[in-house]
């Protein structure tokens, strides 16, 4: 039996080595090379010495934080509401459905919706509000980013809430807690695991958005993804691009660590 288990694990290990471990090692290795291929620490020195990259890192984290925060605020009530519905599988499917469509196609759709002659401005005109610029603004970028990330926040929270034992809520009410206390002391702590994985699933990809910053943000919103793309494609300084990549990877580990620290004390 044990032999078979090893056999079944082979595809997973191959996957792991080829697409996770090898690329990370390559990125890490490249980050110590200059454009001539000599060993150097200059990339890291440049990164930490220049206000530009630190500012960009701050921008990326700040945007990712805002996106995560707002999607969380929208998603939690939505997920809670969904668990109370009758045909929840159907409703859930409707939320999952947009994730089947390519992100670029969705971004292009928003170009049409947000444009000066797009549907939103048509609607606003109806109320006599002059055409507004939505494309190429922070707000436009945030809205599209949130739209894209929303399902990845709703689903884990929904799963967390659905596993919740209803008798616990009844017990809490029986023992005299009001609705607010029940929520803060019982429901929210128990759904925290879902919230955490939702935050991971949204925050980490949001850090390195770059097609959206270009298509919707019109390169007026600059994140680390833009810099990485530039270094790999234009300046061909793979070392610097990889250095930024390493910083992103470290940032991801920090987020993972922060959002999973209390796991040990939980179930089992």
């Amino acid at each position: 039996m044990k032999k078979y288990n090893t056999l079944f694990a082979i595809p997973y290990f191959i996957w792991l080595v080829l697409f996770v471990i090898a690329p990370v090692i390559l990125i890490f290795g490249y980050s110590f090379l200059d454009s001539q291929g000599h060993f150097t620490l200059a990339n890291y020195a440049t990164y930490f010495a220049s206000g530009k990259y630190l500012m960009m890192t701050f921008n990326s984290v700040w945007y990712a934080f805002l996106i995560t925060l707002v999607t969380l605020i929208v998603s939690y009530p939505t997920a809670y509401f969904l668990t109370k519905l009758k045909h929840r599988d159907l409703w859930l499917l409707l939320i999952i459905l947009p994730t089947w469509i390519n992100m670029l196609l969705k971004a292009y759709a928003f170009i049409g919706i947000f444009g000066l002659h797009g549907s939103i401005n048509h609607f606003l005109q109806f109320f006599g509000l002059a055409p507004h610029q939505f494309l190429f603004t922070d707000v436009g970028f945030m809205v599209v980013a949130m739209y894209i990330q929303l399902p990845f926040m709703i689903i884990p929270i929904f799963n967390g809430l659905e596993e919740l034992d209803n008798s616990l809520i009844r017990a809490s009410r029986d023992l005299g807690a009001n609705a607010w206390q029940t929520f803060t002391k019982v429901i929210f702590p128990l759904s925290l695991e879902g919230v955490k994985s939702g935050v991971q699933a949204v925050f980490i990809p949001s850090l390195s958005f770059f097609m959206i910053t270009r298509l919707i943000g019109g390169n007026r919103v600059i994140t680390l993804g833009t810099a990485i793309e530039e270094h790999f494609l234009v300046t061909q300084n793979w070392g610097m691009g990889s250095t930024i990549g390493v910083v992103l990877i470290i940032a991801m580990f920090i987020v993972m660590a922060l959002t999973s620290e209390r796991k040990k004390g939980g179930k089992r």
Partner: protein
Amino acid sequence: MRRLQALLLGIVAIILLLTGGAWFLNQSDGAKGSKIINMYNWGDYIDPKLITKFEKQTGYKINYETFDSNEAMLTKIKQGGTSYDLAVPSDYMIQKMKKAHLLKPLDQSKLPNLKYISKDFLDQPFDRHNRYSVPYFWGTLGVVYNDKYYQASDVNSWNKLWNPKFKGQIMFVDGAREFMGIGLASLGYSLNSKNDAQLNQAYNKLKSLTFNAKAIVSDEIKMYMENEESKVAVTYSGEASEMLSENSHLHYVVPNGGTNLWFDNIVIPKTSKNTKGAYAFINFMLDPKNAAQNAEYIGYATPNKKALAYLPKSITNDRQFYPSQKQMAQMEVYEDLGQKYIEKYNDLYLELKMYRR
């Protein structure tokens, strides 16, 4: 231990599989035979009727494949899967391909029709004495505007782009050379400047231009100008000619005070197996009548002096796409700046993109 063995075995199997696959693809990709010419060009960048005509005249068969960026083309030619006989890279890419030894030197005695190309467009800095390339089309970097909102006198010099009335309205083509170039040209410096003081001066001047930027995008400019989402854009004449044919309110201006002059050129990659056919095709395209027909179809400016005579006056007198001698004299071709300055330009450009409010 056994797990490790299995893992290693799996990796070896994958390597073998991929190598086999690559070999197989290399074998089957691209057409072969002495009568076949593999051409690698930009999408819709030749009059298809000319291909048919060439095939009928000479008996060669053209296998036409397309790319959408110089970098994509470079990668494909480097990797050498298909033995392309002809390719059409832009100026700076020729320098790069030359350095990477991907091009065959041209034997100009086999290209009698090269004499029709205007001297102004030969012997350019990216390929001295045209050892590797023959100019195919040329153009400029300039400003497209919509006459419903602005007129030519609003944008006929780079400095006018700083006018506060353009606040948040101008679209810029996404490129470090282009954006920095606007600053350098407006100050009267060379577009290939390697002078740090000049670059910093341009950088400081461009900071305030970012307030006028609506967006910094690439191919999308075409769409945004055509549907009037945007009123003014800095873009290439080639893109502009396509916009102008879609929306009659659009016009193209080459600002005074110097701008970029770009070339697309025909080259013969090292991988070519049918060099004879490649020469025949280049000669065919250099023939003034064919060049004129192609220029009329594509709408770009032809470097072929004799071909101008076959083009309608309305095209050759169009100062939008065939600027005056005086303007031409101020224009500059981008030179390869070397790694240090490529990075310097891009760093400054990245900071300008981030600069706001």
